[in-house]
């Protein structure tokens, strides 16, 4: 019975694959997997955050909170390419600050900053999952798809803005309180320009799909 069930499902999957391009079928399944995986990870993170906010996390828990940061350095070195040896210097470097046994304010406030990001990313993945499903079913120019694309563009732009504000907050209120002998931290805004570019690209794609929907409708009503 089990073998018949498995064989049946394999036949259905094979038939479905024949109707759509393999790459679309793969992307659709991958988007579904990524969505559910990310949802599971987010759920675990939220559960842990709630436990920690309520103060039920173990006192012995050595909470490490990592932050990316930039600092000035000045080191001389060499660059060897074949027989050519050139002198080089490093003037700025980036690294990760690791809080060992982070103060409660840091361990509570910083994860709270992550929650809206998680929600936004989860929603984007859910929209994308719906989008790829419609494409796989042959309804690429469905009005629902256009709505999904528009929302994706808005949310990605929102994530970009949020990250810019978060990094500014981090630099103003966290980095200024670092004290390392011999290290000078630089205030450097995160370059999330690629996110904004993606948002604009998806926005343009929305308009292209809208045109496609109009043309499809006109074709459907052409006798």
């Amino acid at each position, binding site marked *: 019975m089990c073998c018949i069930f498995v064989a049946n499902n394999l036949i259905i999957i094979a038939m479905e694959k024949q109707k759509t391009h393999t790459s679309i079928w793969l992307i659709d399944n991958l988007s579904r997997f990524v969505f559910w995986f990310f949802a599971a990870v987010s759920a675990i993170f939220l559960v842990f955050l709630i436990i920690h906010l309520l103060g039920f996390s173990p006192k012995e828990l050595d909470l490490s909170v990592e932050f990316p940061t930039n600092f000035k350095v000045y080191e001389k070195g060499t660059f060897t390419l074949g027989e050519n040896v050139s002198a080089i210097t490093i003037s700025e470097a980036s690294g990760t600050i690791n809080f060992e046994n982070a103060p409660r304010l840091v361990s509570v406030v910083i994860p709270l900053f992550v929650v809206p990001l998680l929600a936004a990313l989860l929603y984007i993945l859910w929209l994308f999952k719906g989008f790829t499903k419609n494409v796989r079913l042959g309804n690429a120019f469905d009005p629902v798809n256009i709505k999904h694309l528009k929302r994706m563009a808005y949310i990605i732009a929102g994530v970009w803005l949020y990250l810019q504000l978060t990094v500014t907050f981090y630099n103003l209120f966290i980095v200024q309180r670092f004290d390392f002998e011999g290290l000078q931290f630089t205030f450097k805004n995160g370059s999330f320009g690629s996110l904004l570019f993606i948002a604009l690209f998806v926005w343009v794609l929305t308009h292209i799909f809208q045109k496609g929907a109009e043309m499809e*409708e*006109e074709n459907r*009503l*052409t*006798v």
Partner: protein
Amino acid sequence: MAIIVNLDVMLAKRKMMLTELSQRVDITMANLSILKKGKAKAIRFSTLEAICKELDCQPGDILEFRDEPAGESD
């Protein structure tokens, strides 16, 4: 819409049902229904030719232009 489709008039004149026309011209009932109801946005010459051949009529017998005031058209 300013272009009126008088397919039902021609069908009545030729005493033919829509289903029969659909089978003869090899156009789906759904498409012919769209045409008959005036919801079609465009018609291919090949379709018009097939309908006119079956109904033994001219395109002008099927299609009529009616000058509608602004705001009434699609």
